[in-house]
């Protein structure tokens, strides 16, 4: 069987290369000897019959309304995937659109799809730079970059982890992201799954378990993860976080 990884709205939601996380999942699956394909879904009509994992990246504020319109057409599917345990990674404004809603700095509000708890609220100044998160669930330290103009509140009961460096959800919460079952929302942008192979593999394990197959990282993954490890070490040092915290 072929693992089908859906990249949602890559034309609108790929500001920082977050949509490339779909390709990262597919590459790791192939390195593990599995068949995998990435399907770009720009419109509900593009949806494949079977969906094993979903990636939704971040866009600009100007694309919020347009992206929301398209996502509304996938509302039932998103709900179903969430309850069926299809792993979903949503980044930045993609995550915000899956929340209860987005409060904009000019006072307007955009209603979210209500897939994830919490809402995005304005923050003073932009949070940009290194973001390191001590994640629960055996994921170790998540290392990457953040760049967002809003905080996130209402996710305190089920966050992705605790902030070791950076802003994360902000508002003094000391927390980052939201995780409900296999649906993850995070400010970690860019190739977060390449940089954090444990998270990628956790998603692939879930996807494979659902389809009745097994996932074990391939040899090439091990080689490539050495680059990730070296990049993580440098970034952890720059962010002033001890690598030993990565347990």
């Amino acid at each position, binding site marked *: 069987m072929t693992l089908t990884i859906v990249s949602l709205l890559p034309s609108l939601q790929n*500001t920082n*290369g977050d949509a*490339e996380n779909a390709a990262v999942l597919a*590459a790791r699956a192939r390195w593990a000897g599995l068949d995998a394909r990435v399907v770009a879904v720009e419109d509900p009509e593009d949806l494949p019959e079977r969906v094993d994992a979903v990636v939704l990246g971040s866009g600009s*504020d100007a694309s919020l309304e347009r992206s929301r319109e398209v996502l509304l057409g996938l509302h039932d599917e998103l709900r179903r995937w969430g309850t069926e345990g299809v792993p979903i990674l949503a980044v930045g404004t993609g995550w915000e659109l899956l929340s209860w809603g987005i409060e904009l700095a000019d006072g307007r509000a955009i209603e979210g799809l209500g897939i994830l708890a919490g809402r995005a609220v304005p923050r003073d100044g932009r949070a940009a730079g290194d973001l390191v998160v001590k994640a629960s669930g055996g994921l170790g330290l998540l290392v990457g970059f953040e*760049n967002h103009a809003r905080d996130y509140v209402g996710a305190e009961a089920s966050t992705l982890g605790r902030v070791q460096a950076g802003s994360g959800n902000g508002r003094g919460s000391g927390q980052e992201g939201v995780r409900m079952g296999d649906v993850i929302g995070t400010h970690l942008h*860019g*190739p977060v799954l390449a940089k954090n192979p444990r998270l990628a593999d956790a998603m692939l394990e879930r996807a494979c378990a659902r389809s009745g197959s097994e996932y074990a990282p391939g040899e090439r993954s091990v080689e490539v993860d050495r*680059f990730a490890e070296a*990049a993580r070490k440098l970034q952890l040092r720059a962010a002033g976080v001890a690598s030993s915290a990565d347990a």
Partner: protein
Amino acid sequence: MKYAPAILVGRLTRIAARLRKPGGGSAVPGLVVNTIAPRYLGTTLSGFPRGLVVVTGSSGKSTTTKMLVAILRAHGEAVFTNPSTANISQGLTSALLEQADWRGHVPGDVAVLEMDEGHGARVMQGVDARVVTLTNVMVDQIDRFHDSEMVAGMLGRIADRAHGSVVVNADDAYLERIADGLRDGVAVRRFGVSPTVLAAAPRGLGHTETSPERLDPADGVVVASVDGASAVLADAGRDVAIGLPARGTHYAVDAAAAYATARAVLGEQFDPEVAARALSAIPAVFGRGERVTVRGQEVDFVLVQNPASYQLNVDSIAPGTDRILFAIGSDVRDPSYFWPTDASSLGRVSIVSGSKADEAALMLAYDGVEIDRVEHDLGRALDDFLAGPAPTSGVKTIVFSADAMRRTRAHLGLTGAE
């Protein structure tokens, strides 16, 4: 007279900087003069008899500026211009000081400045430009500009300083919106590509948002066709054949931008044949698609500055080139925005280096590129790469970011063109 003391201090600072770092250009004199005479930059920029021309945008501004200067000089204009490494205020002031007499007066009838899109709006406060040329809006360094709206906003503020004309890339939807919002009395000139040229670009033009329709040749300068390193511009019913500094549609677009801008600056005086000759005589652009001889061998330098130039320049490396050094430096703080690009055509890279070597190796690996070695020390990487075996195909090729380029040139003792 009033700037004489500041100029003197700036000169002395420059001498001191040169003593400390021989051969080095420095922004410090500019910083000093900007501090003690904050109005010098604006006053001088406003003082050129035939006005100020500003070229800005996400990418292509260096090439467009060089091409424009070449066309204007070929028409006999005395042009002041800035080196591309000096496109923010300190650098601009330093560049003016290089040419200024003791009173601060800079010779030249017209100034053509490449301006950084992020700093331009501030530099241009209180300064009027005769012509502003906008190249494109692409997603640029994410640390600086979080999204394309922000870049477009900054370009719009620079365009608002134009009192004569604004020259825009008609294929860029963001720039067309800026053109729509200009005040009355400012002429809009356009350049763009033909449907054929767009169809032949394997990955499109790289704009954040491409305009839905192509420019009608009756409404501006259109790149009618591109064939390797030559192109044909359609201008007011006339086909103008030009040579490009290297292969690539983006050079043809830059040439069209320069051509359209020169037309706006020169008016009746503009001669298409003179422009075509000037464009065709431009040497390969510094650092980008440049072939140099180092340590007795030919080496290609390929500069990557943003996702668009990365893709175009990586695509332009001949497939099968089997000796590649890939160096990304600290200028790329967060490489995330490079991930949508595809470097799979490189196949194999001998050494990945630079302070962002690991991040770069990770990205290349996911593109399916084989990596023989990661060497953080760029000097050692260069030495080993140049001493290593000759390629079986093509010439040794060094792909670098701007910071890695500067370090490479310094290490190899190559004097920068600027």
